């Protein structure tokens, strides 16, 4: 389904993805200004002494040169070096510029503290903002030396990074450096933390998606690392912080997960190994870093682990780039191309940083760029994760709406069908019932009334009375079978039994009723029940009129899925001809309902038996 909205949507994100890495590079290029302070102002000569004293020491000073450089005193809790610098006379309005501070500083001139340090204790304060200290002309004139104490946790520092330059130049450089060294990392930190929290929230909403979880974890880890650095980093020793530098590269694992997930590459084993190795290396590295400050052994472990980790992450980066390359060829769309582009930019910047580290002079810039550029793919992942989450939520909502609509329409359909069916069913049942009633009236009552009419014409009053009684009895059966409350055979039989008992008694008959409970519980269709009762009535009437016996056995039982009704008398058997009409009637009725009629005569007893196969479509057990 392509709509104008979705096209604009796609274009917007494509532009964003393609622009993000380029914008990042452009920003770096724009923001990272080279030092404008000429190299001539760099401090090139100084005296030094390694000392933990709070004031400049009076003796032990050594000149700084290739063979004499400050070394770390391992018995001290941290490295503390005092430098003594002669202020050049030719600089107008001189100021001390530390463009790239990485520790705690104390600066004295003529017994006066020009830069007040943070407390000198472990873990040391970690200053990241450039320092500019105006030196004042009067002090310079007296020729007093400048004392600079540099305190760091991990290693010594070079005095050569420092400048004594005109204050205006120094201030401008410091302000420009402030952007790259302080504000840019803070901006990245805010960005990362926001993304990390957003994705973490999505992870908690949809737990089955591990990619969200890993993304949130690594990005927040990195954010924590940056926050620690920017805030002055007094939580851990510096080794630990540098260790975190490497550990925060575990976002590469997330990237691998993400690519696999995104391009639907199933590699659970690879993912598991990568995760295990990264976690193991991180644990070893941070473990070594924890003790590296006070132990030469752990310091060397730390450096070994750091090397292994950098090689590992570099290898990972190459594997990921390769995967990208393969995957992008499989799926050539904006999303994948932009991811690949971002990745390429990261690799390029990584190479630039390496060259910068090795001091290749043609490399522009003043800082490592990877810390800023690596955020770009993470940002893109984040956006894509959020987008996908939103897409899926919307899709789920659409599906839901669609489903509801479908259910509603189906329900309406069903209702309509069911109403129509009910109506038709009712009409059908009504028609059936009406035709049954008509047939019953026709066959039974009609015939009997015509018979009665003929009898009355002939003046045969006794016969007439009998015929009318028969008609009335039949009508009673019809009425019983129609009664809505008498729908089981039991109820119908009860009514019949009640009625016939008096008559039998008057006729001098004794009756045994053997009605099995289970058989009487069967509910037959009204016409079936009526036929059974009519057969029974006929049989009883025949017996009373013709058998000349005085006992009846009326039996109802259920055997072999057959309902069996029998009427047995103890009379003289069926006299041929006499009961012929009654027997014919019974046979016709039995045929109508698919039952079998048997007449058994044995030692003076006559049994009339109806066997009705129980078709369970017609029968319900109540």
């Amino acid at each position, binding site marked *: 389904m392509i709509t104008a909205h979705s096209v604009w949507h796609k274009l917007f994100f494509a532009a964003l993805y393609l622009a993000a890495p380029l914008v990042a590079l452009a920003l770096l290029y724009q923001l990272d200004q080279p030092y404008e302070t000429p190299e001539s102002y760099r401090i090139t000569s100084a005296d030094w002494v390694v000392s933990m004293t709070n004031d400049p020491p009076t003796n032990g000073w050594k000149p700084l040169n290739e063979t004499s450089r400050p070394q770390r005193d391992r018995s001290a809790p941290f490295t503390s070096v005092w430098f003594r610098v002669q202020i050049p006379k030719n600089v107008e309005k001189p100021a001390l510029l530390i463009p790239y501070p990485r520790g705690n500083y104390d600066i004295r001139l003529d017994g006066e503290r020009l830069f007040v340090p943070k407390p000198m204790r472990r873990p040391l304060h970690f200053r990241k903002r450039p320092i500019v200290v105006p030196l004042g002309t009067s002090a310079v004139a007296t020729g007093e030396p400048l004392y600079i104490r540099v305190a760091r946790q991990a290693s010594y520092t070079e005095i050569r990074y420092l400048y004594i330059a005109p204050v205006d130049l120094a201030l401008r450089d410091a302000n420009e450096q402030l952007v790259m060294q302080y504000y840019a990392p803070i901006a990245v930190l805010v960005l990362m933390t926001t993304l990390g929290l957003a994705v973490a929230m999505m992870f908690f909403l949809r737990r089955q998606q591990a990619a969200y979880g890993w993304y949130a974890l690594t990005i927040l880890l990195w954010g924590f690392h940056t926050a620690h650095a920017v805030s002055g980093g007094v939580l851990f020793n510096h080794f630990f912080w540098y260790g975190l530098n490497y550990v925060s590269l575990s976002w590469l694992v997330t990237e691998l997960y993400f690519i696999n997930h995104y391009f639907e590459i199933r590699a659970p084993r690879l993912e598991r190994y990568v995760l295990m190795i990264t976690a193991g290396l991180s644990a070893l590295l941070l473990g070594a870093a924890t003790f590296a400050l006070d132990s030469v052994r752990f310091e060397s472990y730390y450096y070994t682990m750091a090397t292994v980790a950098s090689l590992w992450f570099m290898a990972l980066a190459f594997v990921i780039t390769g995967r990208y390359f393969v995957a992008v060829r499989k799926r050539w769309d904006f999303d994948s191309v932009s991811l690949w582009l971002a990745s390429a930019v990261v690799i390029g910047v990584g190479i630039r940083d390496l060259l910068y580290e090795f001091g290749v002079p043609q490399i522009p810039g003043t800082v490592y760029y990877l810390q800023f550029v690596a955020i770009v793919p993470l940002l893109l992942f984040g956006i894509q994760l959020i987008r996908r989450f939103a897409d899926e939520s919307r899709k789920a909502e659409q599906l839901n709406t669609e489903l509801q609509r479908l259910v509603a329409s189906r329900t309406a359909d069903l209702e309509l069908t069911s109403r129509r069916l009910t109506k038709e069913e009712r009409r059908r049942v009504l028609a059936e019932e009406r035709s049954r009633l008509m047939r019953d009236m026709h066959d039974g009552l009609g015939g009997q009334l015509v018979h009665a009419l003929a009898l009355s014409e002939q003046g045969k009053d006794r016969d007439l009375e009998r015929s009318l009684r028969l008609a009335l009895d039949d009508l009673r059966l019809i009425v019983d079978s129609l009664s809505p409350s008498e729908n089981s055979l039991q*109820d119908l039989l009860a*009514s019949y039994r009640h009625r016939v008992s008096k008559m039998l008694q008057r006729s001098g008959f004794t009756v045994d009723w053997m009605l099995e409970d289970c058989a009487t519980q069967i509910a037959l269709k009204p016409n079936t029940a009526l036929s059974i009762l009519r057969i029974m009535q006929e049989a009883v009437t025949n017996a009373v009129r013709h058998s000349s016996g005085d006992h009846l056995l009326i039996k109802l039982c259920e055997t072999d899925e057959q309902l069996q009704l029998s009427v047995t008398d103890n009379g003289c058997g069926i006299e041929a001809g006499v009961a012929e009409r009654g027997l014919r009637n019974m046979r016709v009725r039995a045929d109508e309902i698919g039952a079998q009629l048997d007449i058994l005569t044995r030692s003076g007893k006559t049994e009339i038996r109806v066997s009705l196969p129980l078709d369970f479509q017609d029968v319900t057990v109540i």
Partner: protein
Amino acid sequence: MSEIIDVFILEDDVPTRQSLQRRLDADAGFSVIAAVGTIAQARTALGAHKPDVLLVDLQLPDGNATALIREHTTNTPDAPVLVISVFGDEERVIAAIEAGARGYLLKDDSGEELVDSIHRVRNGESPISPAIARHLIRRYQPAVMQKPPAETLEHALSDREMEVLRLASKGLTYQETAQALGVTVNTVGTYTRRIYTKLEVSSRAQALFEARQLGLMGSDE
């Protein structure tokens, strides 16, 4: 049975009325003191006569006789009313029994049966057809009874009475019921009379209760 029983007949179909009258007159123990065809005539006649037994058809040209039955049984409970009916088990007969009728006769009963039925009713035996028995069972079954008024509970049937109803609902005669319960026919008769009385009283209480619920009667009643 030395006394002559005075019978009152309300039946609109003239041949049926005459047939009934003829059949009863044939027996020396009965005297038909009035035989009328409308409710209005019946009211007039009942003002003048005090019959021992009333035979009443329900559907009459000037209305249904149920109200008349209720009136009569309230004023003169000693003279039982028997409903004359073709089938004996319609809803109408049940309604009449609830109104106070003590039983029913079938219009085609022979004279013998007619006499027998009247004697039985005067002895307190009321006939219970299976349909009526079923109706009563449904009515008194606690599970189906919904929020009965207190009056109805007072007239709940005893286990024995319930048993009689159950056997009657299966179509058993008095004799068969008595045999099955191991009691005399007279005892069964006593049970059935009690059942009828309870039914009448409870239905009256029910009617009263419902009327009160509807606010048709003052609370000072």
